[in-house]
């Protein structure tokens, strides 16, 4: 029984291997980009807009408001990264209703890749916002004794991010597979529906956590903490 889509390899040449995870990710990327392009190629700034534009606007505004709520005062700067995290994970999880589809988020490699992206993005955004000094000072908060703990927390939360998403999605898929072998009808359907819900929640949690980490690293968050 296959646990991860990484294990289905289409083509391999030394270190390079083209597995199901990568191919599915490409398909998802293509679908997302195509859909976005189709809708946004003739956007209107009139009062009346097309339905698809309304859907996309709603989505984008929702993501932006979420980022703002967490405490980032300039959400437009971060929406590219955080929004894409959310959309990619959400769409890849939602498509589990498609038969024979295996979510790329069910592969530890993918979730690790996303977690590493966050791990790198946090200091990048932090430095971009408050300078290198300002960012490094955040490791000494509230005092220098906390430095090792801060570093450990930074690494462990990245690990937690990766494993949490992977575990949830993989377990969803696994439970469905197991249940199908035991109770072939009806019950796996409920579990699938539940899987959709957990998929959405995971996407939301992943994106929100990334936002919180970035907010913690940027000046904005410090100001809010200072004042609060």
């Amino acid at each position: 029984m296959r646990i991860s889509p990484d294990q289905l390899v289409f083509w391999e040449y030394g270190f390079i291997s083209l597995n199901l995870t990568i191919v599915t990710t490409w398909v998802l990327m293509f679908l997302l980009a195509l859909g976005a392009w189709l809708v946004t190629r003739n956007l209107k700034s009139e009062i009346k807009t097309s339905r698809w534009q309304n859907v996309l606007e709603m989505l984008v505004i929702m993501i932006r408001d979420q980022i703002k709520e967490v405490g980032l005062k300039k959400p437009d700067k971060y929406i590219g990264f955080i929004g894409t995290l959310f959309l990619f994970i959400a769409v890849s999880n939602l498509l589990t209703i498609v038969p024979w589809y295996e979510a790329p988020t069910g592969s530890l490699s993918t979730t690790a890749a996303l977690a590493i992206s966050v791990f790198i993005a946090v200091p990048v955004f932090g430095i971009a916002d408050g300078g290198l000094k300002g960012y490094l000072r955040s490791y000494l908060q509230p005092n220098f004794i906390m430095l090792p703990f801060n570093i450990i927390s930074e690494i462990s939360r990245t690990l937690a991010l990766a494993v949490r998403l992977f575990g949830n999605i993989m377990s969803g898929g696994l439970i469905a597979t197991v249940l199908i072998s035991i109770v072939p009808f009806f019950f796996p359907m409920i579990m699938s529906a539940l899987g959709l819900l957990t998929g959405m929640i995971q996407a939301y949690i992943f994106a929100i956590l990334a936002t919180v980490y970035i907010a913690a690293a940027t000046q904005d968050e410090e100001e809010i903490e200072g004042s609060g």
Partner: protein
Amino acid sequence: MEINWFTVIAQIVNFLILVWLLKRFLYKPVLEAIDAREKKIALQLKEAATKKAEAKKDQDLFRQKNEYFDKERVAIMNAVHEQVDAEKQRLFEEVRQESTVLRSKFEESLKQQEQDITNRFKIKTKDAVFQIAKKTLSDLADVSLEQQVVTVFIHKIRNLDGAAKTKFIEALKNSDGLITISSVFDLTDNSKQQLEKALEKITEKQNDFQYELEPELVSGIKIETATYQLSWTIDSYLEALKKESIITKDKENAIN
């Protein structure tokens, strides 16, 4: 449960590409569209506010104007009413005056008619009296009325009393010689001679005489100079007859 590091790297690259793609095709255009719309709406709201303010201003202006017009209209109406009243009053007055004039004219003409009737009566009466007297005199005493009138006239001249006589003589003397004698009938030569003689005797002066026939003359005979006139009349007769004629006329009116 193992991590394929190539896949990890590939997925990181994929993810970064996806970030770029979505930024390019999703977030940027959508956010721009939203911003543009917000701006547009804000602009429209501002415009609407401006237009509203303008409309309010216009409305106020129109209201003011309307009030002013109303006032003016009322004032004009009042003035017109006054003018009409005055004009009516004036026309009434005019009509009243006209009616007064007409009434007075009517009354005058009535009077005139009355007068005419009276005059006609006088003349007819006179004629009748003359005819009767003439007939009576010629039948009973073989004396013509004309002759008798002349004789009475001469007698009257001779018997004029003091002041009147003096005045008469003065008038005849100052008449530049021409004395007009009017009568209803043709005077005979004898009568003329008698008259001329009598007048010469009074005035003690030769006079020129001119005779005229005047059928309308109420009196029988009349002497006239430029400044004086003396006539023998049958006034006593005529007064009585006039009274009678007025009574007759009243009766006629009563019938009408």
